[in-house]
């Protein structure tokens, strides 16, 4: 049973990522949106290169969260179209595998987004990376946290008719700890503030673990309705 869950989760993640690869909505719409937000931040801070460098970690993560809302919303919109979610339910796949698979697919998309946005921040905000290991670990852990919490909340609002407006209201306050932790870790990695980056990584990993368990456990209750 144990391996079946992983295999099914892998299957679901593959399906979601394949849909994304073919539709290219993430690459053609979500990434340009995120880059635009970075540009708007630069306009808002008035060509002050020093301010941009100082606040780059926070601005980066706010941008990731905003783009994540779109990615999560899309992950469930795809399932709802043509009654695909009903068929997923009928397939008899363990809800834990469905949750794991969807969260994994969202996390992969977020990591791709982080890499592209990271390049944008280095180019546009003139930051230099001092600690690559911390940067990569924090980026992965934060993506996992946003993906697990996001998948849980995405399922909670899916099919309610007002999910586009409801998801931000519910999810953004919940992922506030990720924003705090990831920003602090990046401040350390960029060398803009003396934060204890590795300690913050613990918070990010803990957050991802808590929401991973919570999501996996409650996903069955959310799927049982048609």
């Amino acid at each position, binding site marked *: 049973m144990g391996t079946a869950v992983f295999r099914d989760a892998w299957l679901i993640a593959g399906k979601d990522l394949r849909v994304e690869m073919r539709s290219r909505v993430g690459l053609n719409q979500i990434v340009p949106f995120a880059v635009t937000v970075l540009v708007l931040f630069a306009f808002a801070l008035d060509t002050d290169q020093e301010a941009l460098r100082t606040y780059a970690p926070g601005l980066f993560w706010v941008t990731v969260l905003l783009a994540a809302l779109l990615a999560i919303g899309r992950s469930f919109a795809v399932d709802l179209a043509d009654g695909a979610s009903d068929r997923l339910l009928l397939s008899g796949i363990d809800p834990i595998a469905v949750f794991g698979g969807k969260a994994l697919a969202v996390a992969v998309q977020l990591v791709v987004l982080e890499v592209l946005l990271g390049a944008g921040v280095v180019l546009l905000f003139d930051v230099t990376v001092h600690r690559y290991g911390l940067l990569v670990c924090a980026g992965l852990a934060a993506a996992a946290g946003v993906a697990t919490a996001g998948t849980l909340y995405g399922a909670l609002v899916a099919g309610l008719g007002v999910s586009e407006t*409801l998801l931000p209201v519910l999810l953004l*306050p919940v992922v*506030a700890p990720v924003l705090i932790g990831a920003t602090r870790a990046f401040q350390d990695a960029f060398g803009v503030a003396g934060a204890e980056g590795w300690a913050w990584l613990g918070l990010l990993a803990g957050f991802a673990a808590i929401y991973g368990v*919570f999501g996996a456990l409650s996903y069955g*209750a*959310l799927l049982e309705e048609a």
Partner: protein
Amino acid sequence: MSTATTSSSATRVGVPATTSSRATKVLGWLTLAGFAVLVALAFAWVPEDTRITEQGDVVGQFDAVRLMFVHVPSAILAYTGFGLTFLASLAYLRWRTDWWDMMAHSSAEIGVVFGVLTLVTGSIWGRPTWQTWWEWGDVRQVTALVMVLVFIGYLAVRRIPAEAAVKARRSAVIALVGAVNIVIVNRSVDWWENRTLHQQSTLFARKIRDETLFTLSFSFAVGMVLFAWLLLHRFRTAYLESQIEELEVQEALEERRAEADGADHGREQP
């Protein structure tokens, strides 16, 4: 459907047409009387908060200390409301009865009202005392804000027109996750700013005056009575709302049946 029809139908099936009862009347009068006494105590009896430092400076909260008699009980009522929502949501997921669902909804609404009141009174108190409306370095203040935002989201879900069971189940999960999240937010904000301006347990350190302590305890008692009074009314309103929905469904069914009967009669005599 007109209100007149609703109330007459409600009486017909034995549903009370009001949320008032002997218990709520007693609680209501107790709250009012308690408030009157509290205002008198807070403004006439409790002296302003001052302390003379070793250097001879006069410091303290001065008259702002009187705001504590609204701020502190509000915060406790907000946490009570959200705590009750958490427990009721847990009970709903276990037993799946409307009673627990309505209890979760009612207490969350009261929790949000007192949560907002806590933030507003805290902010007004902070202006003269900390010289700022908002202090990001204060863990409790930031946690309370995030908590209120989470439960405002919860109430938004409750307002969506969706099937009652679907809404109840999803709301219950949101309340559970939201409550767990309060702990995470609290810890992370604490680490975020490793300092706090908030009063560190003055209640137990006995830095607080006897008059202030008594009035504060009295304000808790009044707050609890107010909470019970509001919860009873809100719960009964939720119950009546659910009854109206059921009646509307029944009436619609009866209308359809009458139409079908009429159509059958028409067919029998062509």
